């Protein structure tokens, strides 16, 4: 334990995700001991982020305006919506440069343990978007884990409507991974769950 405010700083840093007590202590002392460290700038950015950044009123992505840059971009294909769990998934897919449509961020996945049911996710907003616009395809890109799969199933049933194609990202083996490096559990299950390839 350190005196008053130093310990408060350590505690506060330690509350951030991915930062344990040891890292919190290291960061705190870095801030204290490094003369050139600009605390004003960090403090300002933290306050700005809270004030300026909001969530896009259309897709739920992070945005500095009412709508995000992707939703405002007329060059994006308005007929395809890719549904993801979190805003960070949008960033990951954007990096692939493979997808030119729009997004819809759910804000998580169905998970009773975490108290997340359909009402906690942005399903209604998605259904509304589909009613208004000329969307022909929804790609479900929830995480390839239990909760992501359950959410995908829920969505695929929710979205049954004429003229709408609903697809799911292929998953199983890690993307871009060599078979050689997949462990026996993953590879074994991929074999067990193999499917006939459509001609």
């Amino acid at each position, binding site marked *: 334990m350190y005196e008053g405010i130093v310990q408060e700083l350590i505690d506060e840093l330690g509350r951030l995700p991915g930062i344990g007590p040891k890292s919190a202590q290291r960061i705190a002392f870095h801030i204290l001991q490094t003369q050139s460290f600009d605390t004003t700038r960090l403090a300002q950015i933290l306050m700005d982020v809270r004030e300026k950044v909001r969530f896009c009123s259309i897709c739920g992505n992070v945005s500095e305006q009412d709508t995000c840059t992707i939703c405002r971009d007329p060059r994006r294909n308005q007929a395809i919506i890719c549904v993801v769990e979190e805003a960070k998934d949008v960033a990951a897919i954007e990096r692939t440069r493979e997808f030119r449509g729009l997004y819809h961020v759910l804000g998580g996945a*169905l*998970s*009773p*343990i975490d108290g997340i*049911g*359909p*009402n906690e996710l942005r399903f209604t907003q998605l259904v509304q978007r589909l009613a208004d616009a000329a969307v022909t395809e929804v790609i479900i890109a929830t995480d390839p884990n*239990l*909760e992501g*799969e*359950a959410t995908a*199933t*829920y969505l695929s049933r929710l979205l049954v409507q004429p003229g709408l194609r609903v697809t799911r990202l292929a998953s199983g083996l890690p993307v871009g991974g060599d078979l050689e490096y997949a*462990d*026996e*559990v*993953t*590879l*074994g*299950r991929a*074999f*067990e769950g193999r499917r006939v390839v459509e001609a």
Partner: protein
Amino acid sequence: MIVSHLSLTDFRNYVSAEVELRAGPNLFVGSNGQGKTNLIESIGYLSTLASHRVSTDHALIRQGSELAIVRARLEHADRTLLVEVQVNRASANRAQVNRVAVKPRELPRYITSVLFAPEDLALVRGEPSGRRRFVDQLLVQLSPRFSGVIADYERVLKQRNTLLKSARGARVAEGQLSTLGLWDERLVAFGTEIIQGRQELVERLRPQVAMAYASIAGIQHRADMIMQLTTLGVQPDDDDLPSAGQSANPGSASADEIAESFRAALSRVRRAELERGLTLVGPHRDDLLLELNGLPARGYASHGESWSFALSLKLASAAVLRAESAVGDPIVILDDVFAELDEARRAQLASAIGDYEQVLITAAVFDDVPEPLAAHVVHIMAGEIVEGPTASKAGEDGL
């Protein structure tokens, strides 16, 4: 496969020990509390990454030390392999194969053992959970993907139970409960895979168990076993539930049939599940029923019979693992087995394990172990390998 050399550092009560081991039987003798079980436990740990005695690794590290090291030289055909695990008190464990770092959970690929210890009596006399663990562990050894399937099943169970519980407290929004069907589907999918995997395994084990038991106790004794499925209405430990009154031998049901009866069982117990906030049917509640001469072993078999049955389960596992293995026999480990058996059964057991590549045996009393198994004797005293009297029976270990 055999372990030809074992090194221990700060493992249990060993500060440091170097032990040469041979093919065939190796006998560890010493008075109570000297470190015989500790020594064989280290080999069991290398092959399963778990102790048969404790659920946390900390007890494996010598009191006052920060880390324990178990290193074994393995030999199979003309290959030699050095496998090593470091158990750390304050950080993640580490492992090496031939001095190259690997993930600890990869170690079981290289070394396989079957360990029988006094604790295994609980397989026959204890709760169903112990028997499920026995079947599942073997299932994972034979087919690693099951560790993923079982983990997923347990996760679904947690999600589903939380949902049922919140429905019970009526705190749940209508929307939440509408997702119950989603979790049912996953439960049935993973559960079916587990039920089918267990049943196929049990079918393979049955003749081996019968054979092992008969070879220890005599051919007039019939040991048998069957999976009791809660999804078929069997409620071994729970009688306040509606039962379908059916306990048919599921034998070799197809995945579709298993899934179908799983779904039917879920709808049968739906009301009770909502009342109790728990998933009441599925592989997490199934049991492996053990029968001796037509009677359930649990509650009927004598102490010696229960002991022989538990031993037979382990010998049967060894036989099944051996049949599948590409790297030779599993190492057979018998901790304190002989003291509990009568003279005839001791001799029978000795011949039943006679042809495994390597067998490790512990005994507090040298004379309890049949002569042919005393080919290589290692004396243990207070966490050290000591020069003992040669394998002559006179003047053994001063008890």
